[in-house]
Structure formats: C-alpha cells, structure tokens
C-alpha cells in the first residue's frame, strides 16, 4: 500500500515537473493567436507553429512570423501565410468606351460627353434627379475618370 502511494505521487511529481517547464501546445496556441493580427490562424503541434491565412503584404507576413518565434516554447515556425491579391483596375479602350458612352448618354439630350484616354468629360446641364442615373450608367462602363463639369439645375 505504501509503495503504491509512493509510486503514484512520484508519477504525479514527474508529470507536474515536465508540465511546468515545457508549455503545452494549447497554451502556446492561445498565446500566439492572441498576439497575431485578425485573419491569421495559428496551429501548434509539439512546439511547431504553423501560420495560415491572408495578410496584406510581405512585411505583415514577416512580422507574424517574428511574433510566433518570440513566444516561449516555440521550436519552429512554418509560415504558410499568403499575400492578398487585389484585382487590378480595368479601364475600357477608348473605341469601346466612346460607343458605350454614346449609348449611355443618349437619353440625356442636354448632356455633352467627350471621351479621351479613358476620361469621360461631361459638359452641358442636367436635372439633379437625373444626375445620379447618368453617373451610375457611366460608372459601369469602366472609365478611367468621369470629369463632371455639368451644371446641375
């Protein structure tokens, strides 16, 4: 009986000893996760940290890795973060734009529209209630810029 008790407490002591000096994966995970920016997911297996998710640029990616490396108990960091890609701005060719602008402004006889290098120049006059409709129609045509010089009545 005495021996069993002794053995049990010995096992307990050893367990506590190891647990005390070496942070558990779950603790590392929550500590690192709390320090990382939103959008980053932290996973930990035997002290190896894996980062996944999307960040804006290389600097943020490197910073996220530094944060994880600085955490106590972390053996290595696998940085699987990806850089967010932003769709480039598409601007219509003048030939296409000229035709589409002519179609869009046809119902606004008091508006004169000129297209040059993707810029739609509007002159003339328009009623306030019609302006928003005209602008919506023109904005869908992928212009570089709408230079609105209209007199609003």
């Amino acid at each position, binding site marked *: 009986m005495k021996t069993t008790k002794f053995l049990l407490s010995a096992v307990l002591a050893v367990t506590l000893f190891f647990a005390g000096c070496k942070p558990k994966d779950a603790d590392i995970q929550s500590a690192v996760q709390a320090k990382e920016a939103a959008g980053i997911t932290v996973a930990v297996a035997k002290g190896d940290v894996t980062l996944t998710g999307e960040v804006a640029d290389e600097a943020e990616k490197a910073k996220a890795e530094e944060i994880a490396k600085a955490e106590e108990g972390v053996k290595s960091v696998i940085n699987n973060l990806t850089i967010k890609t*932003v*769709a*480039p*701005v598409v601007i219509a060719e003048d030939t296409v734009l000229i*035709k*589409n602008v*002519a*179609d*869009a402004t*046809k*119902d606004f006889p008091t508006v004169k529209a000129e297209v040059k290098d993707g810029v739609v120049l509007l002159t003339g006059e328009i009623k*306030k209630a*019609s*302006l*928003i*409709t005209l*602008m*919506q*129609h023109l*904005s*869908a*045509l*992928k*212009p*570089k*810029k*709408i*230079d*609105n010089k*209209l007199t*609003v009545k």
Partner: protein
Amino acid sequence: MALQEKYKALTDAATAAGISDLAVREQDGILYVDGTAPDGATKDNLWEIYNQIDPNFASGDLVLNVNVAIDVAVTHAKVITQSSNLNIRKGPGTDQPIVGKAAHDEIITLVNRSNDLWWLVRTKDGEEGYCYAQYLEPQA
C-alpha cells in the same frame, strides 16, 4: 491613401452591406470601388453616401462600379425608364435599328444576359431584340 480616408464612410457601408468581391484601389489619384450588391436598394444607398461625400459628383476622384447581383433563375424584368417607352433594337447599340418598344413599367421576358450592357428580351407581343440593361429591373 487620402482618397481612401475621404470615402471611408462609403467603403465601410459597402463592407457592412455585404457587397461581394468588394475591391477598393487607388490609382493615379482616383479611387476605384468595384463589387456586387445583393439588391438595388443597397446600390442606391451607396450612391447616396457618395453624393453626400462629394456633392453632385464634381470631384472626379471616384469610379463607383457596383452592380446588382442577379439570380440566374430570373426570367423577367420590369421596364424602369422614367416615363417613356424603352426601345428594343436589332443589335446591342443605339446605332442599331429599333425593332420594337416596351412600355414604361411593362414586364418583359429576358432571353439572354450575356452582354452586360444590352440584354436580349422578348415582349408579350413576341417582339425580340436588345434593350439597355440599365432600364431593366430583374423580377424575383
């Protein structure tokens, strides 16, 4: 970055309203905001905010291209001209001959929406041709 600040209320509203594939980029002094709105009211609300930030859209520093998502199952649309009839044309363009008219508020059948700007439609009289999509409101 200054433009993103100027139009922050707009992009915040777009995010809150659930605009899908929202893209905000600044290039050569102009801010480009693209995305797809769940409905027409959301799109109109964004334009109201734009009008508040830049009264009468006079600055020319934003291109707001937000379209309304259309369910592929939609087969009919309402003519939403201000009051006049809507021309139905032989091909996609105002240089094309007029082959028919659809009345203001009339519900017409959508045949093909593969062209973003000009939709192929059919009236209840059987006239078929292209209408300017901005004057058509898809019916759920």
